[in-house]
């Protein structure tokens, strides 16, 4: 798409999702997911691929001084926010929010609601800041609901507001936590 294809690591080295049983055959998990989505929800689903990785932009400060911007895909929102939808939407959630909801069809949200920190680590990251491991945590978390079948919607509808939020908060390092 954008130039030379970079050589990749051998598939499956060190990763347990390289082979999974599904529908009587063994597939890498991305193929399991593709087949599952095609069968159940999106008959023409295909992964969006990129020829090259996103470039690394090293933080300009040591980690112990870095402001960390949290991005989550677990469908986190506060009670008076409408949940983010599969078309690709972002909800901005204060890191100090005392009550959140998890709205996402792709994982057990009831289990995660026992302790939302499992997919929304707003208790863990401030503890790291208190311990001096990181500098600080940006006050607003960008949350989306990660089941967005059309990859182009992620690029066009999710990425811009997430980037805007991170830039406005002058983060040194963005951390994306999937669900």
């Amino acid at each position, binding site marked *: 798409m954008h130039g030379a294809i*970079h050589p*990749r*690591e051998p*598939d499956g080295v*060190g*990763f*347990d*999702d*390289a082979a*999974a*049983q*599904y529908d009587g055959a063994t597939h*890498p*998990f*991305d*193929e*399991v*997911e593709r087949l*599952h989505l095609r069968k159940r929800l999106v008959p023409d689903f295909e*992964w969006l*691929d*990129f020829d*090259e*990785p*996103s*470039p*690394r*932009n*090293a*933080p300009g400060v*040591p*980690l112990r001084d*870095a402001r*960390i911007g949290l991005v989550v895909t*677990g469908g986190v929102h506060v009670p008076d926010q409408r949940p983010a939808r599969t078309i690709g939407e972002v909800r901005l959630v204060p890191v100090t929010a005392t009550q959140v909801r998890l709205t996402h069809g*792709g*994982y*057990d*949200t009831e*289990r*995660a609601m*026992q*302790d939302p*920190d*499992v*997919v929304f*680590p707003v*208790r*863990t*990251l401030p*503890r*790291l800041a208190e311990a001096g*491991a*990181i500098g600080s945590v940006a006050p607003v978390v960008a949350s989306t609901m990660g089941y967005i079948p059309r990859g182009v919607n992620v690029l066009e509808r999710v990425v811009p507001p997430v980037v805007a939020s991170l830039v406005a908060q002058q983060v040194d*390092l963005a*951390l*994306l*936590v*999937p*669900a």
Partner: protein
Amino acid sequence: MSITQAPTITRHARPSLAVFVAHPFGLTLGAPGDDATHEAVARTVLAEAEREHPAGTIVATGFRWPDDLRARQLRKQAH
């Protein structure tokens, strides 16, 4: 940078840097209430930001799940 629980999927998106944590979907940082594991995962992941990894690297970690929930999720036999 990103945490990933599914490197074969992450390879499509090709983020600048991803760190693989073999926890079940919906339990990314660890079990509910297991603050020690949540913190260990966060520390381990963030530490990779200061290492000289080429763009597109997926770093493997030693985090594993004690039962078969993740394995069943990968087979679409659990939520």
